[in-house]
């Protein structure tokens, strides 16, 4: 089965299943299905008339933007899963801050203190990952997994204590795990806006440095850049975005915002600068639509919808991305194989006509040129009947081939084109024999693969390296060419 189909079918089904309420209804949840919003509600959300909705949507959009920007560098630094470890490692910080505050008699759910605790444990976790990697034989994946699970376990244990404390109200703490987007406050949105601004400023200011760090850290170090400092700055940005995102979308889903938008943006461009902004845009769109959909339909947790929106963007990008998308690459592959068949066809016909002399033009008068039929062409190469027929039709349409319905021949333009192709093939064969010591009997296959990608410059360079006599006219084939099978006219 085609791997593409394998991927897309379940992904599509899953997304479809998530968004189509009828599927849930069919599963026996009739009365609990998602209620489609009335047009009135739709209008209210779209025009941001609700104060609460307005705060939430602006907040998640900005969070998506910030995560998209920072995540781009993280992805290119091949550290996508570090964000996963970081976000899990923050839990003990949150719980510990709450316990300490409550034990000291203060209000436990002081947002800044909780965020501070989370950030502290994020940094501790990063340090632990680095120490395990450097001072043991374990690789990065094990280091990430160990820190993630042990820190998260500590977090759960501390949360257990926090919820059993007599004083203080720990009920809201679990919102850091799943997120509590819908109850985002104005202050939260302001905090997110500040962080988003910070992320954008850093991305612009340190663009060159970060780019160098992502693509060749060793080179950056050898050029005297403060690699460790830059790395630290980059990780600090990641920590800040993670911590801010924790209570907005939850610690597992903030990872998605850091990974998915940049991964999706990669399919649209080769330029880092463009990728950065596309990723930011995707993140913002996910936040906008995710929060919007969640506000429109009851019973849909916003964090999860935001992530699924991002995943949908990823799926679309994977298929339709303008530079690396599957569709684009598929079309390119199809075009290439068509061109290769076209060139092979012209060469085959030319070589069949060659039996009477150096080229079909100056064939000896008493030599009968063979009639080229489909069957003869089919026997000479491993192409299917359909492929050959389509290649012939395209040659006709391009005016390179002529046919009386049964036999095929090159037109004047076709002959010119065929000569160019055969010449490339034989120049390369000669080159392989002269300079790479390839046996003449084996040279055909090697040349077969390369001739289609030889451009004019390379042909000129080849001509410089080859003896003058082969350049005068069409070089003779260095190996035996199977004579035409079938009747001569």
């Amino acid at each position, binding site marked *: 089965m085609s791997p593409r189909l394998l991927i897309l079918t379940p992904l599509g089904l899953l997304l479809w299943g998530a968004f189509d309420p009828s599927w849930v209804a069919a599963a026996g949840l009739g009365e609990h299905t998602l209620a489609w919003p009335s047009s009135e509600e739709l209008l209210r959300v779209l025009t941001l008339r609700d104060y609460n909705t307005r705060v939430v949507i602006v907040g998640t959009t900005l969070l998506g933007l910030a995560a998209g920007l920072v995540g781009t560098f993280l992805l290119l630094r091949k550290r996508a899963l570090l964000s996963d470890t970081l976000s899990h490692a923050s839990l003990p910080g949150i719980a510990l801050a709450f316990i300490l505050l409550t034990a000291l008699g203060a209000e436990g759910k002081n947002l800044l203190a909780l965020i501070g605790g989370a950030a502290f444990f994020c940094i501790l976790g990063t340090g632990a990952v680095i120490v395990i990697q450097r001072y043991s034989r374990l690789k990065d994946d*094990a280091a990430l997994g160990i820190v993630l*699970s042990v820190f998260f376990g500590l977090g759960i244990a501390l949360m257990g204590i926090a919820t059993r404390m007599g004083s203080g109200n720990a009920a809201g703490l679990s919102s850091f795990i799943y997120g509590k987007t819908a109850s985002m406050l104005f202050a939260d949105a302001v905090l997110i806006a500040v962080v988003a601004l910070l992320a954008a400023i850093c991305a612009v200011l340190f663009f060159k440095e970060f780019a160098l760090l992502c693509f060749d850290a060793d080179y950056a170090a050898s050029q005297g850049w403060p690699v460790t400092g830059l790395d630290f700055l980059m990780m600090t940005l990641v920590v800040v975005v993670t911590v801010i995102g924790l209570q907005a979308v939850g610690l597992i889903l903030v990872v998605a915002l850091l990974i998915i938008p940049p991964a999706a943006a990669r399919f649209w461009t080769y330029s880092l600068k463009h990728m950065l902004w596309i990723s930011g845009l995707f993140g913002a769109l996910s936040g906008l639509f995710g929060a919007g959909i969640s506000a429109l339909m009851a019973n849909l947790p916003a964090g999860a919808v935001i992530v699924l929106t991002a995943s949908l963007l990823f799926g679309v990008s994977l298929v339709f991305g303008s530079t690396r998308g599957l569709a684009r690459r598929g079309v390119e592959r199809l075009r290439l194989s068509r061109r290769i068949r076209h060139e092979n066809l012209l060469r085959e016909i030319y070589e069949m006509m060659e039996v009477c002399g150096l080229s079909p033009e100056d064939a000896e008068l008493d030599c009968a040129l063979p009639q080229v039929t489909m069957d003869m062409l089919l026997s000479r190469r491993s192409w299917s009947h359909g492929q050959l027929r389509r290649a012939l039709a395209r040659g006709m349409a391009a005016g390179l081939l002529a046919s009386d319905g049964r036999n095929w021949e090159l037109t004047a333009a076709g002959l010119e084109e065929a000569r160019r192709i055969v010449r490339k093939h034989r120049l390369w064969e000669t080159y392989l024999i002269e300079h790479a010591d390839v046996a003449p009997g084996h040279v055909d296959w090697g040349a077969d693969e390369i001739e289609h990608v030889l451009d004019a410059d390379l042909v000129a360079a080849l001509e410089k390296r080859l003896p003058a006599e082969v350049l005068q006219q069409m070089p003779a084939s260095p190996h035996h060419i199977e004579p035409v099978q079938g009747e001569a006219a």
Partner: protein
Amino acid sequence: MMEWTSFDTWIVVTGMLSAMACALLGNYLVLRRMSMMGDAISHAVLPGLAIAFIVTGSRGSLPMLVGAILIGIVTAFLVQGIFRLSGLDRGASMGVIFTTLFALGLILIRQAADHVDLDPSCVLYGAIELTPLDTYLVGGFEIPQAAVTNGAMLLFNLLFVVAFYKELKITSFDPALATTLGINADLLHYVLMTLVAATTIAAFESVGSILVIAMLIVPGAAAHLLTDRLGVMLGLSLVFAALAALLGHVGAITVPTWFGFRDTSTAGMMAVMTGVLFLLVFLFAPRYGVLSRVIQQARLALKIVGDDILGLLYRFQEMAATGTAPMHAGDFREALKQNWPVRMALWRLSRRRWVRRVENGFILTDEGLRQGRGIIRSHRLWESFLCGKMGYCETDVHTPAHHLEHFTDEKMQSRLEDAADRPGQDPHQRAIPPAS
């Protein structure tokens, strides 16, 4: 005060069984550098569970298992497919897939919550404290359902590992070799992933989906630091897993009491205990531990400083020509530009009776003289060899000889002497002492 009841025993037994079932497979995740795949699968099974709940409307084990296995396979395929098709690195491919599936799972659970008694927090970090309430009657004994499930999973995993020991070993260490031997590495990969998913589900009720990864990865990683043999590693990881489960529960009911709290989550403490065990191994493992490496290096450094002191004393006595000239401790510190290492090395040399403290400094004993002669002999032989045979004469010949002298034994000395054509003197015209 700790009160231990049969309840606690069953919690520990259940925890041990699930931890061991996880740890066994986790070894292979660590060795294949796919630890995070365990994390990805443990997050991604959420929609599988939710769908199983929604479809059957119950919390039966079988539908859960089927749903989890299906989603485990889907996850493994999706990650592999995205990785191959998209050009993203493996980590990012996992990140895209498991967060998507997790989000989907959250939505589905929310949809199902009204119908089925299903709490995401219960799925995420389990409720091992409640497992003894739900029992089967097996041969007259009331055994918790979770213990039976996890025990069966452990047995199954053991059978799998024993039956495919060789195949798993080869594909883990050298997939290319495995392919040439006709072992289908891809198939084994997917089977392993499926088993990981199934084990994750079986462990759900005891430790929850996220803490499963602690049981999957940490015991194996700790065992990996202790041994180079796969069989031993598997055994050690099982011991660590069982120990972590026991200590985890004990810790959960004792540690919080030190701070005036009643108790806390056993699952959380089990993960913490795997971390504590890992930390101990990380520091104290005989070969790969941080501390043992520090000690080895310190020992080597002390030996080198000691050699240098012996060399200095030998040279000094050679120049003084009287045989017993003392040298001050301060002279060594100045010459070697080190303080504490010199003090410690002097202490070590005195204890071995290679140097002797006299009124105004240190002198070599007879044995010390022999040792010092050996070092100087090595040094000067190397200098002669480097100068005469390797064309080092124009450059600094002292420094490389100084490095090499510490690692040259008597056998090598005589070979060097032959190779340097038996020179009587080094390039600085100082006599090379004879072998003693």
